[in-house]
């Protein structure tokens, strides 16, 4: 074992212990090397607040998109199979909002257009209703 290899192995060991959650070791090493631990802890809190907010937002957005897609496909299926309850529901939505003229003919709606109509609605409620009506 040569000098560089030993150095690397020790560095790997330290990093592996920190990676596995030994925060005291990381702090001790930062202190030894003259860091201001309070400042680092404050900064870690700050980026956690910023990024966990963004991460949650992204996950929620992706989940909503998935639900929207699922609901749109179920509605599309219901229209094709002439299941009355979802058709009535969609008609109500179309008549209640700005889509009244644009989407009068439900038979000709594609998935994207269905998404446009239902995107601001309570998706969980829609899915529940759709699943009950099938």
């Amino acid at each position, binding site marked *: *074992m040569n*000098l560089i*290899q030993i150095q690397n192995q*020790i*560095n790997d060991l*330290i990093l592996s212990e920190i*990676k596995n959650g030994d925060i005291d*070791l990381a702090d001790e090493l930062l202190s030894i090397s003259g860091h201001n631990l309070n*400042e680092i802890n404050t900064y870690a809190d700050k980026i*956690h607040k910023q990024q966990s907010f963004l991460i949650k937002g992204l996950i929620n957005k992706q989940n909503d998109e998935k639900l929207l897609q699922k609901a749109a496909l179920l509605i599309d299926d219901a229209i094709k199979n002439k299941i009355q309850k979802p058709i009535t529901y969609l008609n109500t939505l179309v008549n209640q909002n700005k889509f009244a003229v644009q989407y009068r003919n439900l038979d000709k709606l594609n998935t994207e257009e269905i998404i446009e109509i239902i995107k601001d609605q309570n998706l969980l409620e829609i899915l529940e209703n759709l699943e009950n009506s099938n």
Partner: protein
Amino acid sequence: MVENNNTKIANQTEIKDEIKKLATKNEYNILLKYVIHRFYLKFNIKTNNDFSIRGIMIKDIIQNIFFSFLSEGKRNWNKEKFPGFRDQFYSALDSEIANTIKSHLKKHNLTYEINESDKTSTTNPFEDQQYLEQIYYALEKLGATDEELILLEPILNKAKRDDIAKEFGISPQKVTNIKKRLTRKLIQIINQLNPSYNYESHTNTKPD
């Protein structure tokens, strides 16, 4: 989970569940400190007062990894290679750090020496042996027990915990404890191991 060419790739729901566990206050604390240490220990690069490294913010590196796992098709979780997501995440982080440094240096036409290379050796084997002896001596001075000194080499050689336990007739938990104590002693002598180990102070400038 998706089976792909004999590789078990986790689905997005599994990844999201694990990301939520990693995006906690405590984990961010570990992540930030890990990145600071990795830049120095592997690349000899010190963190600046504003938590940037050569103009690259550490927070952006961490965020990129989280977002790349959440963007379908960007980064996968290979469950075959990394049964735990944490290991997959840190492996991606290590690659991101290496790539960030490489592209930065390439952009600025610079070269660097990565500490990672284990092919390099001193020209003098005697110096290498002497170096190892110095480590043992320093550890002894710090009160290392016989067990710690005996287990130093297998631990540095990344021998598996259970294998060490079996070979030395001790419990796996004892191996873990010895490893922890040994690492703490090694960081006490790290200044001797890496003579330039001395970060820039964070006391003068407030981070953004």
